[in-house]
């Protein structure tokens, strides 16, 4: 693709590389951009990335696996969009996604990205595990297949296939049951929501997935959706409508808050621990939902909620966004964002780092192991904490 | 060129000279008032031209429907005795120059709300009260095309108003609406008082913002939850050009169930925000501004004010934070009404 065909050809040169995109609002650390945190080379900062993209589209640079990795190491966490003072700040992430799109159309993407996309195309999930195994997580939970219930509980790929995340998918199921929510799941019929496929620049595949899902949801008469993953929440809330798929979608943390407030969920057994909350990008910066998860935690007796120095719109991403939980361009170092993040969490003195995203959960959990913090810090999903808090006393 | 239609005979024949005798900033008896007005009419210098703090009030005091304040400003300019330091005049005059693009005529329907220099406040034009309203400008880069210019009465630059106003009126008229609701008192004053006073054609009917609010509230009567608050209204200079609309403030307060507090500085006797006074060049003006502000605020507090209600964004900007600092809530009239209808 030539620069002239690029959607942002008239904007991309306007990045000055002043570097605000690397920081949180307070400027306390230069590593609030996950990719820059990991590599600490200008090429991996958002500004550097934009300049490199422009150089590539201008034929000043050839495509290389390394260039691909630089571009795809963007976790689409939106910290740059949050911090960039220029008028086009809202478009920055999309400028990078559009460049990924150009690479996808040329067929030159890093191997890990290729696997991710081919797996989703074949099996409806990035791991390439059989579609026929998607529903296995729900065995023995008594959770029903969707059949006209009030809510469709959309689990997503990570919750369906990752062993740790499956526990969370079940935990949330149990909590919803306890809360008397009428809901069902799709099991093997569920397909990838496409959020990360889109963020990897494979617009065609994203639309195919979205249209397929929308058709299925409509056929089943779904009107309300509750998602386990903020990624699915983001896609269904912000992208499906333009494909004529408008549903009343909520992230589960929002639903739990209502249940607790309405007294439909008895959390009186409580959960005694000092807890810090990690904001998932696709809940926080992408959808400005910072309070619901915190409200839920505050509602649980015994939970002492403490904040990390960087939180809410300034939270450091776990490094799993934009498909990186699978492609892993940000892993393998003590500078990996997930490891920095668990060190941040540890510094608060909390014994639990809670999150509300299966991607964050698995990223942080691996990081806790890698940091050897197993004995000091436990990674839990909010639904698990609530789950424990609504165990009837004594049981 | 447009000229001020000032009836000298009315003025010279006036026995009360309320314009000057009622002035809150000058202590003038009828005799002096007569002499000074005569000088002013004859285009001679007068201490009035220097002592005037440009609060617009005399436009309201004058019972003869004459335009003493417009006249004073004319003379301040002719005799080159402006109340402000020159750099601030230059700055102010340049503020109204469109420099970020030509006028973009949006397609709008009535009711149409003219936001003048304040598109950034469009955020509060929403909800039931405004559901069918379309507004312009919506983009800060467009605002100079809608700027009513009346502010320059504080700058002894009536000529600038006359020079630019016709174009601004033309810009608004190009939106093809019969009625133009004026978000800002200043705009209403411009179209309803200043323009006629200078024989400037206004091809649409200006509607006072409070008039719209009042009528809309009447429509929504059933949705109104009385707020039961004690409020004080901060009268802007420009409301002196539309005293006939002042009753709407209390009418609205009644509708939304707020009590306007008993205070000294109210109605004719209201104190301005003193924002203009603070910038003036004469010795003591800065201190005067502080004094006016202090008296105004103390009066509100003494009366047990909970909310201080604004129409003019300039007033809000210059004293809103002091109001807040003194334990009251500054709020625009529109937002107060929105609270009431939920």
């Amino acid at each position, binding site marked *: 693709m030539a620069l002239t065909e690029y959607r942002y050809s008239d904007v991309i040169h306007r990045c000055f590389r002043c570097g605000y995109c690397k920081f949180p609002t307070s400027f306390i650390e230069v590593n609030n951009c996950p990719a820059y945190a990991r590599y600490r080379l200008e090429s991996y900062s958002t500004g550097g990335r934009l300049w490199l993209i422009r150089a590539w589209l201008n034929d000043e640079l050839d495509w290389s696996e390394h260039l691909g990795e630089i571009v795809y190491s963007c976790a689409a966490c939106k910290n740059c969009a949050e911090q960039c003072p220029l008028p086009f700040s809202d478009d920055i992430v999309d400028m990078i996604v559009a460049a990924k799109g150009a690479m*996808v*159309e*040329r*067929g*030159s*993407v890093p*191997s890990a*990205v*290729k696997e991710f*996309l*081919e797996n989703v*195309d*074949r*099996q409806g999930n990035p*791991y*390439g*595990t*059989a*579609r*026929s*195994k998607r529903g296995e997580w729900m065995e023995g939970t008594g959770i029903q297949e969707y059949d006209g219930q009030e809510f469709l509980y959309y689990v997503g790929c990570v919750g369906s296939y990752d062993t740790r995340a499956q526990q969370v998918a079940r935990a949330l199921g149990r909590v919803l049951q306890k809360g008397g929510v009428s809901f069902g799941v799709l099991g093997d019929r569920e397909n990838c929501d496409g959020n990360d496929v889109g963020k990897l620049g*494979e*617009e*065609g*595949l994203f*639309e*195919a997935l979205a249209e397929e899902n929308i058709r299925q949801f409509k056929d089943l008469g779904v009107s309300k959706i509750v998602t386990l993953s903020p990624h699915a929440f983001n896609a269904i809330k912000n992208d499906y409508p333009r494909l004529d798929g408008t549903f009343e979608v909520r992230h589960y943390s929002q639903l739990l808050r209502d249940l607790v407030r309405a007294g439909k969920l008895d959390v009186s057994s409580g959960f005694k621990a000092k807890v810090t909350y990690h904001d998932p990008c696709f809940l926080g910066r992408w959808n400005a939902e910072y309070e619901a998860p915190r409200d839920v935690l505050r509602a649980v007796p015994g939970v002492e909620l403490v904040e990390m120095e960087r939180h809410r719109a300034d939270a450091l991403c776990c490094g799993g966004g934009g498909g990186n939980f699978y492609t892993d361009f940000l892993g393998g170092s003590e500078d990996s964002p997930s490891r920095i993040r668990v060190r941040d969490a540890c510094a608060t003195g909390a014994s639990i780092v809670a999150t509300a995203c299966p991607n964050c959960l698995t990223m942080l959990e691996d990081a806790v*192991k*890698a940091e*050897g913090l*197993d004995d000091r810090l436990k990674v839990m999903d909010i639904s698990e904490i609530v789950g424990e808090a609504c165990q009837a006393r004594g049981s | 060129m447009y000229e001020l239609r000032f009836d000298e005979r009315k003025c010279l024949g006036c026995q009360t000279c309320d314009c000057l005798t009622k002035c809150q900033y000058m202590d003038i008896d009828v005799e002096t008032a007569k002499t000074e007005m005569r000088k002013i009419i004859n285009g001679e210098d007068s201490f009035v031209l220097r002592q005037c703090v440009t609060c617009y009030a005399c436009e309201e005091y004058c019972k003869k429907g004459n335009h003493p304040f417009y006249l004073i400003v004319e003379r301040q300019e002719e005799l080159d005795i402006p109340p402000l330091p020159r750099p601030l005049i230059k700055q102010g005059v340049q503020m109204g120059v469109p420099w970020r693009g030509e006028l973009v005529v949006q397609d709008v329907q009535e009711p149409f709300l003219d936001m003048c220099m304040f598109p950034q406040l469009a955020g509060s034009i929403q909800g039931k009260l405004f559901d069918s309203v379309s507004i312009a400008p919506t983009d800060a880069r467009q605002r100079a095309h809608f700027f009513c210019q009346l502010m320059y009465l504080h700058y002894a630059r009536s000529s600038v108003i006359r020079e630019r106003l016709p174009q601004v009126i033309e810009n608004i008229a190009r939106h093809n609406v019969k009625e133009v609701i004026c978000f800002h008192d200043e705009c209403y004053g411009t179209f309803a008082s200043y323009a006629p006073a200078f024989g400037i054609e206004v091809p649409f009917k200006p509607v006072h913002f409070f008039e719209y609010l009042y009528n809309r509230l009447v429509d929504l009567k059933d949705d109104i939850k009385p707020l039961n608050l004690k409020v004080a209204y901060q009268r802007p200079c420009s409301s002196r050009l539309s005293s006939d609309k002042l009753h709407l403030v209390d009418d609205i307060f009644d509708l939304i169930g707020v009590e306007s507090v008993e205070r000294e500085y109210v109605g004719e006797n209201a104190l301005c925000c003193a924002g203009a006074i603070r910038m003036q060049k004469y010795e003591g003006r800065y201190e005067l501004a502080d004094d006016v502000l202090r008296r105004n605020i103390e009066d509100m507090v003494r009366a047990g004010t909970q909310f201080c209600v604004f129409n003019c964004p300039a007033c809000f900007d210059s004293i809103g934070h002091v109001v807040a600092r003194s334990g009251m809530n500054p709020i625009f009239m529109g937002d107060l009404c929105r609270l009431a209808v939920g």
Partner: protein
Amino acid sequence: MDIVVAVKQVPDTSEVVDVVEIDGSGKDIERGTLVSRINEWDKYALEEALQWKQKLGGTVTAVTVGPGEWDDTLRRALAMGADRAIRVDEDATVIDCSAAARTLAALIGRLPHDLVMFGAQSEDFGSAQLGPMVAEMLGIPHAALVVRLQVEEGEAHVERELEGGARDLYTLRLPALLTIQTGINRPRYVSFSSVRKAREKELSVMSLDELGLPPQALTPAVELARLELAPAGKGAVLISGAAEEAAARLATILREAGVI
């Protein structure tokens, strides 16, 4: 430079070994729940062909013998960049290599071919015979397990992979047939939109007699007696814990096993 690439569609068993089951006949696996895809090796053959077309011009034609569903794979080949695709309409799951070879030879024989490329083997039956057989039937030279290719002046210089990573080099006069080993290149990603665009490209279907072959041409030389699943392996150990410990643990296991 005209290149013909033979491709095959296979069931995707990569991630799902445990769900593979033998069907009633005992001669095939349950294909019900399995999704199918292009044979891994064939991707490399196609990529290699396309890269040479890019360098030298000419055409790339993808061919296969198989049932209607296999059009998906041909479409994928077209999406990758092949100019046209031809399917001989026969159920390849019931015919043997020699039959398939005869059919393909007949087809390829009718097409312009300076180079013919096969994947080194198939993921399902993995006999690795088809390429060589076709070469023999066409009477053109061939090289198997090619990991490097250089084409110039009517000759193909190839590098083959041998046991233990040894290599040998040959020069073949064109036309020639090569079976391509994985790793020779990095097959491109085929974007969804290019698959959509490929729908406009030519995909023709031929029958045996259009190729002038009698039905008995498909009589198998060998017959599949029975399929069996490999018995589940034993002694798998799951290592958990922090990276350092895990690594240490693994090292000891390997040492004990005498692997290192």
